């Protein structure tokens, strides 16, 4: 029996080792490798509580293994164990020690809870209005006059104040490598703050079941050096030009087929703002930003993202599709 138990313990440990070394998470979405202050604070608390709990686990498992080996019934044995009622001393010990441990854990917990809740924007911080839609994210910078979707640009080192709005169902805004999540709740405005300590690309996820496309409601956070961020803002404010004949045709097609949703005419059927579509790095937040993928999306959005609200644009001729694609890709 004890050999089997040992084997099981080995298995668990090797699994742990495997998980920790062989297939460790990716820094773009790893809670254990945070790149922002909020994420660091959260990791601190995670590790702190983990090691505390590991200590408790070690005590339990030591007694456990000892008891199982020492007091197992041996062949031919027929002993009458003493029918103890308990031990007041022991019981007090294992009541008081956990209370003390939890008290120790409670102090930083309450501390961090209040620190992370303090999301008031200061002069230096960037304000972003985040809106979760089925199944895409809208980001608006009210102070900068910039609006984007699926991609959140933030300057490194600055506190980003997020105002989180919802319109349809619940979603949850989560950038694992930068910090924990806040729910998107229709009819309610939530706030949270984030920052990135180093430039890079971070994955964002929707973490609340929101329908068929929930698994694919991804977004990207780009943390840029402040100078680069300012350049990005300037670019976003510069209207894109229509240069070629194909783009002109594409513009016409866009006006005829897409404006209803993509220009906010019908608030119930709102699609992402596409005026700077060419700057994006993903199609629908998940596919690489190529013309081929854009066409794939246009022809059948639901095949790419189940439940997507966008209708199929499969009635265009090949030329029309090319023109529309070229037009969209030129929106830089």
């Amino acid at each position, binding site marked *: 029996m004890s050999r089997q138990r040992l084997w099981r313990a080995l298995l668990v440990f090797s699994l742990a080792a495997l998980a920790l070394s062989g297939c460790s998470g990716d820094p773009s979405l*790893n809670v254990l490798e945070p790149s922002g202050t909020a994420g660091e604070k959260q990791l601190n608390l995670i590790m702190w*509580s983990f090691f505390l709990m590991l200590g408790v686990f070690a005590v339990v498992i030591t007694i456990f293994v000892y008891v199982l080996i020492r007091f197992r019934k041996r062949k031919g044995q027929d002993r*009458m164990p003493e029918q103890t009622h308990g*031990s007041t001393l022991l019981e007090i010990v*294992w009541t008081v020690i956990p209370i003390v441990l939890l008290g120790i854990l409670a102090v930083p917990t*309450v501390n961090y809870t209040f620190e992370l809740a303090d999301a008031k924007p200061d002069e230096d911080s960037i304000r972003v209005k985040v809106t979760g839609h089925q199944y895409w994210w809208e980001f608006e910078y009210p102070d900068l006059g910039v609006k984007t979707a699926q991609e959140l640009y933030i300057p490194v080192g600055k506190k980003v104040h997020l105002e989180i709005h919802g319109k349809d169902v619940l979603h*949850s805004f989560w950038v694992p490598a930068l910090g924990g999540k806040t729910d998107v709740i229709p009819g309610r405005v939530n706030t949270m703050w984030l920052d990135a300590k180093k430039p890079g690309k971070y994955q964002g996820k929707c973490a*609340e079941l929101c329908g068929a496309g929930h698994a694919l409601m991804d977004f990207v956070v780009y943390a840029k050096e402040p100078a680069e961020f300012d350049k990005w803002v300037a670019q976003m404010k510069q209207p894109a030009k229509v240069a070629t004949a194909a783009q002109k045709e594409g513009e016409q097609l866009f006006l005829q087929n897409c404006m209803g949703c993509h220009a906010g005419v019908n608030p119930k059927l709102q699609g992402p703002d596409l005026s700077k579509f060419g700057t994006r790095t993903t199609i629908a937040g998940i596919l690489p930003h190529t013309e081929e993928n854009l066409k794939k999306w246009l022809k059948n959005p639901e095949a790419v993202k189940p439940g997507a609200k966008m209708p199929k644009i499969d009635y265009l001729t090949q030329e029309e599709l090319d023109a529309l694609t070229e037009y969209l890709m030129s929106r830089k």
Partner: protein
Amino acid sequence: MGTLIVLLVLALFLTAIFTGGYNKDFLDRVKTSKVWDWLTTVDHKKIAILYFMSGFFFFIVGGIEALFMRLQLIVPHNDLFVGDTFNELLTMHGTTMIFLAAMPMIFGLMNAIVPLQIGARDVAFPFVNALGFWLFFAGGLLLNLSWIFGGAPDAGWTSYTSLALNEYSPGPGIDYYVLGLQISGIGTLIGGLNFLVTIINLRAPGMTYLRMPLFTWTSFVTSALILFAFPALTVALLLLMFDRLFGANFFDYTMGGSTVIWQHLFWIFGHPEVYIVILPAFGVMSEVISTFSKKRLFGYTSMVFATVLIGFLGFMVWVHHMFTVGLGPVSNSLFAVATMAIAVPTGIKVFNWLFTMWGGEIRFTTAMLFAVGFIPTFVMGGMTGVMLALPPADYQYQDSYFVVAHFHYVLVGGTVFGMFAGAYYWWPKMFGKLLDEKLGKFHFWTFLIGFHLTFFPQHFLGLFGMPRRVFTYQSGVGLETINLISTIGVFGMTIGTLAFIYNIYKTFKVEAQAPADPWNGRTLEWAIPSPPPEYNFAQLPRVRGLDPFWLEKQAGNKGMTPAEPLGSIHMPSPSYLPVLMSLGFFIAGFGFIARGNYAVGILGLIVVVITMFMRSFEQDHGYHIEPEEIEDANKGVQA
């Protein structure tokens, strides 16, 4: 309506064929058939079997749903079950496992054992007991019919609004959820009420509260939790039904409603529910560990108080499911501290189990293996539980695979291990046969290894950024291997469960009857034959202390000392009304789900009202079993 009549006629035909054709004696033959006996029984031991078996059936169904989900996630970008289909699977898996597998299996064990452990001949309300089962069954059946008629619910077992509103879930799926759970929830509620009264009023002479076995105690606290938690679910489901079927605006924010109210109501029910399903498992573990260590339970009194305290605190912590809703740091901190406090009584229990084994003589039967395997597994779930209680850390864990790993460690490691331990331990008492120990051990090891292989890696999935309830995940960010391992583990659990099914099958074929006391037991149920006669105790026993049967055995007595002379025993008569009333609810539910067919819904409700009147006007005085019959039966057992 037409479908209904066709089904009714079909059912009559089947009955006629089954009982040998329709003629004058048709009704008599129906009434003497085995099926009729089981449909109308009010015997707690038979109801126990009904509960346990239907619970196990739904456990298989929920398990298959889980298997499908893990198959979808075996590699990234898989397209086996995507989008809504996957959401249906995850919703039905959660709902089935909690409401239709865990709850009835618990009620099964409670029904089988609690009356025996307190030395009672039956429960306080045998009729209500049967009604509770049939309502649960009708609700469960209704919920699962959604797969065939119109699509299963797909908004998660928590069914959060606004996703669960008409606008975002237009099909009948959520209606099945609402009405199915409402009906089975009423059954659960009255079942819990019945056990509270049973335990308070029907204890044998000398069975004081602090002499009750721990399984009875945990059943008692669980019943109290059911009584006070389920009404919150009733209200939540009622309001959602109003919103979906009758145009109300509780959760529609455009009309002033609030989606957060659903979350509050759901979790005011939902958190106690977690303790409802775990406490009886604690009770089973306490019985099993004490029996197979050949020792009295260490720190019995503190175990009782820890149970009560866990039950009490269970109502104070629901907001820890809502840390990311944005209720503010004060509320988050308060609920965090309350949640952490639960670790203290739970810790007391774990140490008491360890010290019950300390100095004992441990026999590793299958039941004991499950109890022993439960301890480290559950402690790991408890560890992550404390980690989850910290709001800032929870902002990272919430709705990620870390949470999935956590609650499977407590629900499978706790409840499922507990139910398996209970099944192996009490099978002889319930069915009169012993389950095969060799197969049982095979079951245990495959299930345990499969379980850890499945769920241990999921902690890392969560920490590496994988949200829960997703049908696919990114490749190239370190999630593939872990997901693969997790899926492989499921096969371990599947093989284990198949072994259990085979074990049940094999055991039914075995001739040998189990002895009354196969494990050298300590509590009253082992003092009577396996399976017990319908009146349980020919004479009510006199209880002299904790572990009463053990005390008598130690004193050199063969059985319990009777507390009354042998006399005529009053028994409740069987009744077909519980089935009929549940059928009424079932029809009503179906009618309301098939929108626009409210005539059927109202017909169902009329059936319910009529059966209620029938019950109210019925003067049923039961029947008596005379001492001569009891003596005859006793001789039969001895021979």
